[in-house]
């Protein structure tokens, strides 16, 4: 096995990792700020992919326009879902869980009814591949990695420096103290849902041309997101990035060298992390 082989393994891991980061970051954000395990997050990812499909393939819009529009549509949907379903039970843990699950089932079921069960596909915005020294990378994948990095940097900067971003961090740390300081908890939650849903939509939009789109993408995505945020730390964006990349590399290396036993590895990893460092790599207790 040549150097090119190992470089390819590395790049595969990076690619897989960035996919997971995209899906998991929104999930982590919601847990961190709203303390809600949003099982419906995977369905938002799936809807983002379908939104892009409808806009780009059916309406013939330019891919980037479709991406931007998908994010906006998903953000609006996220806010609606928050207002209608999550806000009434903001502080009640058990009903929130059942409602999130029920929502996931509802959205998945509606998507199947409306879109049918067949796989749909979105034409790539950057067709073509580049090869150097035996390593292959398709241009679409590079585009995904680049855009994912841009989104993550934008998100991190926003949370660190923007007023609303800082408000979100305050609410995440201590909701009551933040409220006492005059930070609108509801407004913060709404913004959080909007951003998180937009991220899920972006993930769906970016990955749609790479793979395919069908109504069943949701469950798999949310379970992966769960693994990532547990490893990285619930509620931490750097954690989601680290966790996503770690999972990506573990799976890439695992699938290349160990075969299908890799599936078990992911869960063993979770258990180890939770036993020895339950707050995750970057999380705060």
């Amino acid at each position, binding site marked *: 096995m040549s150097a090119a082989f190992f470089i390819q393994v590395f790049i595969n891991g990076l690619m897989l990792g960035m996919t997971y980061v995209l899906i998991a970051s929104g999930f982590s954000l919601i847990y961190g700020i709203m303390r809600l395990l949003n099982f419906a997050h995977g369905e938002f990812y799936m809807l983002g992919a379908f939104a892009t499909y409808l806009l780009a393939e059916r309406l013939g819009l330019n891919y980037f326009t479709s991406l931007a529009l998908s994010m906006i549509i998903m953000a609006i949907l996220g806010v609606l879902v928050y207002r209608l379903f999550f806000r009434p039970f903001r502080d009640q843990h058990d*009903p929130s869980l059942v*409602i999130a699950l*029920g929502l996931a089932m*509802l959205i998945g079921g509606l998507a199947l009814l409306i879109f049918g069960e067949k796989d749909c596909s979105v034409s790539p915005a950057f067709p073509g591949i580049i090869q150097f020294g035996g390593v292959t990378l398709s241009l679409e994948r590079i585009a995904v990695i680049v855009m994912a990095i841009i989104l993550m940097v934008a998100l991190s900067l926003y949370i660190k420096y923007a007023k609303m971003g800082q408000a979100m961090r305050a609410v995440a740390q201590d909701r009551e103290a933040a409220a006492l300081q005059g930070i609108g908890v509801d407004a913060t939650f709404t913004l959080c849902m909007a951003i998180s849903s937009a991220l899920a939509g972006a993930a769906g939009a970016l990955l749609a041309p790479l793979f395919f789109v069908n109504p069943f993408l949701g469950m798999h995505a949310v379970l992966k997101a769960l693994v990532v945020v547990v490893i990285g730390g619930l509620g931490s964006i750097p954690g989601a990035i680290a966790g996503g990349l770690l999972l990506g590399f573990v799976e890439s290396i695992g699938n290349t060298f160990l075969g299908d036993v890799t599936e078990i590895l992911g869960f063993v990893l979770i258990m180890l992390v939770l036993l020895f460092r339950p707050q995750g790599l970057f999380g705060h207790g």
Partner: protein
Amino acid sequence: MVKKKLSSWSFFLIIFVFPFLSQDPYVLNILITTGIWTVAAWGVRLIMSTGQLTLGHAAYMAIGAYSSALLVMKGGLSFWIAFPLAGIISAIVALLIGYPTLRIKGVYFSIITFAFAEIIRLIIIHWPSLLGGYGGLAKIPAPDPFLTIRFTSRLPYYYLLLALAIVTYVVMVRIDQSRLGKIFSSIHESDTLAESIGINIMKYKIIAFCIGCFFAGLSGSFYAHYFNFTSPEFFTIWQSIYCLIFVLVGGGGSVFGPLLGSFFLTLIPEILRVAKEYEPIIYAVILILIMFLLPGGLISLPMRLRGKKSF
């Protein structure tokens, strides 16, 4: 006290008498299936009563199912010995897993239980020589005749399950009312407080966890011998989630809750068969509606009605 005894026993009486009115095997099957999930859900409720939310209950059902099937098929034991043994094996695994994991709280514990459940499922899949892999274990024999009753029709299974349900119910109610139950409650309210008055919270959490998983094992064993077939597909994250939903929708506040939750959420999909492709959507809507109207679960209905009437 007398009123309470009347309430639960009148319900079980209805279930006991039902086959005298109708022996429709389709309905009996639904009631039996509901019963299996009720026993499992009671286990979840017990674990939840110490403040630990488990997302991996299906794994313990699987352990019970596979242990029981193998003890009978490979070990040559009678069902009547394999059945309680299956529960005990599940409880032992619960002890081994519970010991390191129960000190972890909240959502992190839930995720660990989920991870463990997946690991169990994957182990079952990757050990086909013993556990049948994806194809599962087929031709699991029915229980051996009990006294002179042979398990060739639905009825003996029905009454066996009823007996199991009654025993489980009584155990759960007794625990709730005993000192043990009060300790569980206090741990649920606040572990730090409980610890400060000298309660060894780990010990009690483990007890609740092991008992809960014991009943999961029993229900799994029954499942295997009733369906004559078991496969890793029967014990995925969704089954664990359903156990949890039965408790939350029915209401974790009383032992009666999971029973209600299990009934409603097993009957609803059957009734909705006529809705064909709309069934999953209607089911999801009903789930959400119940949570909206009765966040405390179905058992909180009379209190809500009374509450509203008082104005």
